[in-house]
């Protein structure tokens, strides 16, 4: 399972652990930047190594740092009973916490072609996609179109409503995680349509990014999440 792959390679995360442990002692569990389960250049030519490096080392790392900072501030505000400060911190927590959640999913959604990236979903998820969207191609078309039409920065998701057992395509603004659209929604796949995710390579042509990203999509991961959530 994908989490195991991640665990075996998370040297960076391990390095950050003493810091997290120290924070636990004070009552706050901070998060750490996860390692990528592949090299920065491994998704080329679909996504360049430079984009992957900046995206992971700069953007995701900043969300992690700012989320941890907000958590510590929240902890202090809660301890003091400072309600206005607690409320004020919500937007930083949603944005930076969402940024961490979303990117952590995103890295697992991608896979080098040599390791099976781009292979369409099989088994239960494959059947569910046919049932809910008509065909795999129809789903890809729908997600690409909704991603291209999204105004500003945000994400396009393949979501599972775990109670209705139904798949849907959702979009969220900025770094809002999928859970902001409903507690029942489980993210199977998220595509980052912030300009930082593609601009160095694709410039203003977001549709080309959205057509190429399917070549490195990790459907195996999505299928595992689906089966766990519907089991």
């Amino acid at each position, binding site marked *: 399972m994908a989490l195991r792959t991640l665990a075996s390679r998370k040297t960076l995360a391990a390095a950050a652990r003493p810091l997290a442990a120290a924070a636990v002692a004070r009552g706050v569990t901070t998060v750490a930047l996860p390692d990528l389960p592949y090299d920065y250049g491994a998704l080329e030519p679909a996504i360049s190594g430079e984009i992957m490096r900046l995206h992971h080392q*700069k953007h995701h790392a900043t969300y992690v740092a700012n989320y941890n900072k907000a958590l510590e501030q929240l902890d202090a505000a809660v301890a003091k009973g400072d309600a206005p400060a607690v409320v004020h911190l919500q937007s930083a927590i949603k944005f930076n916490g969402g940024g961490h959640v979303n990117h952590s999913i995103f890295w697992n959604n991608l896979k080098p072609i040599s390791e099976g990236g781009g292979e369409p979903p099989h088994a239960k998820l494959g059947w569910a996609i046919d049932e809910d969207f008509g065909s795999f191609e129809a789903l890809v078309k729908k997600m690409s179109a909704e991603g291209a039409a999204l*105004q500003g920065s945000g994400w396009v998701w393949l979501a599972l409503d775990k109670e209705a057992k139904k798949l849907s395509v959702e979009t969220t603004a*900025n*770094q809002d995680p999928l859970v902001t659209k409903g507690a029942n929604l489980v993210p199977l796949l998220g595509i980052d349509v912030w*300009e930082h995710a593609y601009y*160095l390579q694709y410039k203003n042509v977001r549709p080309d990014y959205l057509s190429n990203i399917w070549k490195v999509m990790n459907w195996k991961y999505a299928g595992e999440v689906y089966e766990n959530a519907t089991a």
Partner: protein
Amino acid sequence: MAAFASALRVLPSPPAAVPRRLRSDALEPYISKRTVELHWGKHQQDYVDSLNKQLATSMFYGYTLEELIKEAYNNGNPLPEYNNAAQVWNHHFFWESMQPEGGGSPGQGVLQQIEKDFGSFTNFREEFIRSALSLLGSGWVWLVLKRKERKFSVVHTQNAISPLALGDINTSIPSINLCDDIPCPLLLQPLINLDLWEHAYYLDYKDDRRMYVTNFIDHLVSWDTVTLRMMRAEAFVNLGEPNIPVA
């Protein structure tokens, strides 16, 4: 070298603010030629083309761009034309907010107003940078004149949102509600805007939005343009109620 000619040929009512004829390398080294070519030639052009396509079958055909933005904002439930129209206007306003060898200190009238409303130019500069960095996602940071209070204010807006369509930006009350049926003057007069979409700076600055914003305010902002915009705004304010002599 191709200049910044008007990209708005097809619009029924071209807006007043057509970019100066400016070479695409005129803002180097702070904004690269490549960024200008893409930003102006692709992103802005896409908004122009999409708007023109919409206007071919739209009830808004023949509106001025400003009218169109206010109407299509639709009290915060934007109609399909809003996004393209506001982004066309925002980008024009942005190019005109800069000049080569800009930055430095504002002219006397503008500087006095800044000192009155922010305490000092340094405070204003810091407030502008702070506001730009605290925008989460894509959008714009603005210096606006609040007409009713006759006060400068720094605000940021998400995505395509324009102060033109907003009454008081803090409460998001559309100006149209505040004026009932009388012709409503602009409540927030934009004086400067800076594009904070990643496409505006990513090729030159990557994730370093702070450096981009700092360079804008220190080296690119056109205080000459701000002075002109202030004068126009003041002329409008001073007009006030018509004073008709009694016969």
